[in-house]
Every structure is written in structure tokens, then in C-alpha cells.
């Protein structure tokens, strides 16, 4: 998809002025974080499990090559094929070739962020193959021709009225006056429409929440059951997964699964956790005849061993997004690529380039909520700070911040001058605010004083008070 992270500030302005989006984002704030808090409180071991999960992933990443080799061996042993792709283009080409070899006219798809990342949708849509998204949220945004705005609820920005309109336009041959005002009506219509696709698709494409080295299994976690119908009913099942999805054993997967749904939707466990292993066996009555796995690197192997390695622990639960004050103000599209919120602010510059996404690590108040709720204990704040540093060093910071930093460092490097000037500043501000203790407006900080007063300084600068012995 198009990368518009460089327009984050304009995108955000538009988002803040969009009342429909603001109402949708308010829904999100009232939903997942509250559910999460309830189920986390109900599991006393939750905090300790975060440490366990972090350690499992760290161990796996430190030995990623070995576990990938073992995984590949076991996929082959169960009759599946493993394909490796260094970048988005190799991944797309491989998947398109599998689809053509399978004689695909219709491809059903489960929800997968890495599939969005590699731009497969555009490749399928440019071909003769019909693409059908089966996750309800993905289906809605496919009809509206939009990218997802959240990694687990991709259509979170769309109202039910808009969905009703999209269904009326897309679903021909139905009574145009039918009721579509309630979520139940919409869900029922989607169920009927998509059933036909599941049974006619030659190829079903899913992502994977985990790949298990010990057995060569792929695991998907869903609530709708769409991923299961996709991978069970098509003749060919294609799993697309990035390298870091691997865990050594099922025990490792279970430990992390105890955190995933709780952190994500605030369920104790998602409805379907499905473990797949190769194609249909000779005596099976159903299941796909062919099973392919496309392992996508796309920049991840280069994140290992750097200050961005910790991000590869991410299980894409979206807890950081759901708790982020910036995301909940501007929504996902503002971030300009598929990964929004704090995880996107860290991952997007790593996977694309810092020049095009320098705004994203600045799109944080550093309040730290994201780190508090991250089940994998990813130090998101520290990693955003790393990106800020490299953006600055490579000259991608904004002009204002560059000037401000230059200005500040000039005085900070001359302590006597610095102390004199700050002393004057404190005195002037205190005099301006005399009798009130706060300032209603001030030049250059209109952004702050538009909505709140600025408290006036009291009792001199830090250093003068320190010298007086106040400590």
C-alpha cells in the first residue's frame, strides 16, 4: 500500500476534524482497555507470564536460524512446502505463482498484517484472480477500497450506516429496501455472501500468529472462524508469515497465547485457536490438498542484533494501540502505513526508512501506557527515542525542532549565560503572572495556552534554589 507517513501531521489534522472518526475512536477507548483490565485482574500470574513470554521470544530470536531450519524440516515431513522471500516483491511473486499453479479464479483471505505489508492485495487485484477478504472488518474495507486503520479491528473507523451503504452497493440482486441498520443484519448478510466464496475458492490465504518449530505447525487465532473456513475449504492453503512468528514448542506457544487474547480484545482466550499441519492426510475426509508456507523477511533479519531487535517480540495484539492517547485522537490512517500506534511508530521506520517516517516516533507523548500494557515487555518508548535520534542525526528532524535544539545547545554550552538568561526568564514570567500565579497566553506557546493556562514559575530557577540548599 501507499506509504504516507511523511504526511502524518496533515493526516492528523484531518482526523481530528472528522466527527465520525472521533465517535468511532471513542468506542474503541470504552471497549478493549476496559475488557483487558478485567481479565488481567482475574489472572494473578499475568505479570509473571509477561516475563516468561519475553524470555521465550528472546531465546527464539537469538537462535532464529536454527529454529527456522527445524521448522522447515518439520513442515516438509508433514507434506507441506516452505518458500522463503527476502522482500515484498519476492513474497508477492511466490504467492501469485502458487495461486496460478493452483488454477485460482477465486482466492479467499484471512486477516494477515504481513500480507498487507507485502502489497499482495494490489497484486491480486491487478490480476485476473478474484480476491475475497473473509474477516468481516477486512471485507468491509475491501468494499470501501480502504486500508485497515487498526491491526485487529481493521474497520474500526467505519460506522454501521456506512457499512450498510457499502453492502447495498456491492451486494446486487437483493431487495434494496432490506433492513441493514443493525449490526446483526449486516453480520447475517456477510455470512451468506461469504459462504459462497469459501466453497468456490481454489486457494485460501491466511497469516499465522505462531509457527511451531517442533511440529512444523502454523497457528491462527480468530474469533469469527473465517480463517478456519478459508484454510479448510480451499484446495490449496497458503500460510504467509514473517520470520519472527516462530516459537520452538507448543508449550512456548501456549505461554504466549495466555497473554494474547487478554491483551488484545480482553477475552481470556479467543474463540478459535487452530493448529494446522500440512495438507490433508490420505484418510482425512476434508482439508486442503496442498499446504504452502511463505516465510517473509522484508527487513526483519537486519533488525536482529540492533537496538530494534526487541520489536521482533511483538505478537500484534494491539494493546499498545488501544491504550495510546495519540492513536485514540487521530486513528490508524494518519500513521500512513499499515502499522499504527506505538508499535507502528517503532516498526514502520525499521521496516521502511526513517526518512519517510520520521514523524511517527514523535507521535507519542511518552506517557508510557504502551509499555505498561505490552504483553511482551517491548521497551517501546526507548525504541522510539532511538528512532528520534537517528532521524535527527540523518537530518530528518523538522526545521523548528532543529533550530530549537541548536539554540538550546548554544546556551547550554555556556553555563553562566544560561543561568543569567533563565534567571531573567523566570523573573519576567513571574512578574507577568503576578497575583494569579498563571498565564492565560504567551507568545510562541499558543498551542499550550489555547486550552489551558501556563503555571508561572515561583522562587527562582532550579540551580538558584539548589544553591540555597533546597533539596
Amino acid at each position, binding site marked *: 500500500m501507499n506509504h504516507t507517513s511523511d504526511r502524518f501531521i496533515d493526516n492528523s489534522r484531518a482526523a481530528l476534524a472528522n466527527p465520525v472518526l472521533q465517535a468511532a475512536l471513542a468506542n474503541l477507548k470504552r471497549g478493549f482497555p476496559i475488557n483487558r483490565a478485567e481479565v488481567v485482574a482475574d*489472572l494473578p*500470574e499475568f505479570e509473571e507470564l509477561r516475563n516468561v513470554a519475553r524470555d521465550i521470544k528472546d531465546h527464539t530470536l537469538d537462535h532464529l536460524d536454527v529454529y527456522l531450519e527445524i521448522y522447515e524440516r518439520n513442515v516438509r515431513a508433514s507434506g507441506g512446502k516452505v518458500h522463503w522471500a527476502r522482500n515484498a516483491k519476492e513474497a508477492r511473486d511466490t504467492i501469485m505463482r502458487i495461486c496460478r499453479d493452483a488454477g485460482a479464479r477465486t482466492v479467499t483471505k484471512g486477516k494477515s498484517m504481513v500480507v498487507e505489508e507485502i502489497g499482495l492485495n494490489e497484486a491480486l487485484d491487478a490480476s485476473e484472480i478474484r480476491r475475497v477478504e473473509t474477516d468481516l472488518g477486512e471485507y468491509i474495507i475491501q468494499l470501501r477500497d480502504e486500508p485497515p486503520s487498526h491491526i485487529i479491528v481493521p474497520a474500526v473507523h467505519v460506522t454501521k450506516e456506512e457499512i450498510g451503504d457499502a453492502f447495498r452497493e456491492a451486494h446486487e440482486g437483493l431487495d434494496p429496501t432490506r433492513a441493514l441498520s443493525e449490526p446483526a443484519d449486516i453480520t447475517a448478510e456477510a455470512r451468506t455472501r461469504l459462504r459462497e466464496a469459501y466453497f468456490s475458492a481454489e486457494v485460501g490465504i491466511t497469516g499465522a500468529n505462531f509457527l511451531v518449530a517442533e511440529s512444523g505447525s502454523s497457528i491462527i487465532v480468530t474469533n469469527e472462524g473465517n480463517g478456519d473456513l478459508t484454510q479448510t475449504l480451499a484446495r490449496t492453503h497458503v500460510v504467509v508469515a514473517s520470520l519472527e512468528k516462530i516459537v520452538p514448542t507448543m508449550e512456548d506457544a501456549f505461554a504466549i497465547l495466555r497473554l494474547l487474547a487478554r491483551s488484545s480484545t480482553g477475552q481470556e482466550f479467543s474463540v478459535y485457536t487452530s493448529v494446522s499441519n500440512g495438507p490433508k492426510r490420505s484418510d482425512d*475426509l476434508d482439508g486442503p490438498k496442498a499446504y504452502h508456507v511463505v516465510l517473509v523477511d522484508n527487513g526483519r533479519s537486519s533488525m536482529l542484533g540492533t537496538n530494534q531487535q526487541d520489536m521482533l517480540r511483538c505478537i500484534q495484539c494491539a494493546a499498545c494501540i488501544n491504550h495510546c492517547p495519540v492513536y485514540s485522537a487521530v486513528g490508524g490512517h494518519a500513521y500512513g502505513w499499515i502499522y499504527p500506534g506505538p508499535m507502528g511508530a517503532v516498526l514502520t521506520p525499521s521496516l521502511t526508512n526513517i526518512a519517510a517516517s520520521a514523524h511517527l516516533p514523535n507521535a507519542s507523548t511518552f506517557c508510557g501506557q504502551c509499555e505498561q500494557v505490552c504483553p511482551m515487555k517491548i521497551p517501546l518508548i526507548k525504541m522510539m527515542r532511538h528512532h528520534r535520534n537517528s532521524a535527527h542525526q540523518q537530518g530528518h528532524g523538522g526545521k523548528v525542532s532543529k533550530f530549537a535544539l541548536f539554540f538550546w545547545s548554544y546556551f547550554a554550552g555556556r553555563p553562566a549565560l544560561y543561568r543569567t538568561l533563565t534567571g531573567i526568564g523566570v523573573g519576567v514570567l513571574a512578574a507577568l503572572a503576578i497575583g494569579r500565579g498563571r498565564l492565560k497566553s504567551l507568545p510562541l506557546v499558543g498551542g499550550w495556552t489555547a486550552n489551558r493556562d501556563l503555571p508561572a514559575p515561583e522562587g527562582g530557577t532550579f540551580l538558584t534554589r539548589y544553591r540555597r540548599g533546597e533539596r
Partner: protein
Amino acid sequence: MSETRDVILSTIRQSLRRGPIYGEARAALEERIRSHPRHLIPSRAGQPPAALIDLFIAKARAASTSVVEVSDRGEIPQAVMDYLANENLPARLVQAPGLHDLDWAAAPTVEVRMGAAEKADEASLSKGLAGVAETGTLLLVSGPENPTTLNFVPPTHLVVLFRNDVVPAYEDAWDLLRVNGTNPRSANFITGPSRTGDIEQKIQIGVHGPLRLHLILVGR
């Protein structure tokens, strides 16, 4: 293709600043997989058997699974017939071949077909390998005895589970497969009927998978 694979693996090693892992270090990793050690299991899974069954049922119901208890397998057909009648559903279903010895004479009105599910099937009956107490989760495993489509295609899914097969944690359920030495194509952990929150965050039950999940728990 193998060239691509080697490039990726060698990039990984370069990034990690080491070469391939051989010898004892490699053996230790293989051993971690062979012994698949368990991690922390929540204490709620450590209760005595009677309390575990109660937890399993409570958690299953909390996830919108309906649960009925019967004392032996002879009562299963009657329980199925009653459920379908109560829900105003047609007395027809497709049954897992693994349950072929059920005696439907006790429920003569129910029309039973055996096999995998087809598009038009309205209800299915399959057998659970295990019930996981910690979250009220069912484990169903594919094979000629228990086709996977039964779990997902029909709008009503009924599952037979024996009380003895209720286990504390996911790891215990998985061990049942390991003991059997089987490596099934598909293993499905199922916790309630299909649901979505994709429309304005309002939970809807029954989107692509079953609208109803009914558990028949067998045994005393």
C-alpha cells in the same frame, strides 16, 4: 529458492554476529524441543478434579457455550433431540464417524448422516478430545473420525465430551495428542460460538463459524 533461504539464514547469523550453531549448543536447542518444557501454568488450573469440572463449565458458559450434563453415552441422542427441539431447529444433523456407535433408537425423529460437513448442513455433532478447564475451551482434532468441517461449516455445532477428558490446562490437552503419537492435520481449540466486534465494537455472535455451540458433557 534455496539460494534465497541461504541468504536469509546468513543475514540472520551476520546480524547476530555469529556463525551457524553446531555441536553441543545445537544439541541443547534440539533437546529443548525434544523435552518441550512447560512454563508457568496459572494456579486456577491446579484445583482438585471436582472444582476443575465446575471451573470448566463456568468458563464455557461465560464464553456463550451452552452446556448440558448427561450421565452416560446412552443419553446422548435424547440430549441432542431435546436441544434441537428447544432451539426450534430441524431434527437433522451430520455426525462425526467417530461417534458411529451412538444408538439413535432413543431419538427416532433425528435424521443422522455421517461424514464431513457440506454447505447445506444445518447442524453437526462431533467429539471433543479434551476440555480445558482454565478457559472452558474444547480441543477437537481432525481425522477420518472427526472431520474439521463439522466444527466450522454448520450454524449449529454440538460437541460430545466425556468428563474424564476435562483437563486443567492447554498443555495437558496437548499431551493427550503427544501420548497418542499422532500428528493430526488440524487441531482446533474452540471457546464458544463464532463472534465478531468488527461493527462499531458491538459483539455479534455467529459470523462465519457456528452461531450456537452446545456441549454435551457425559459421565458422572
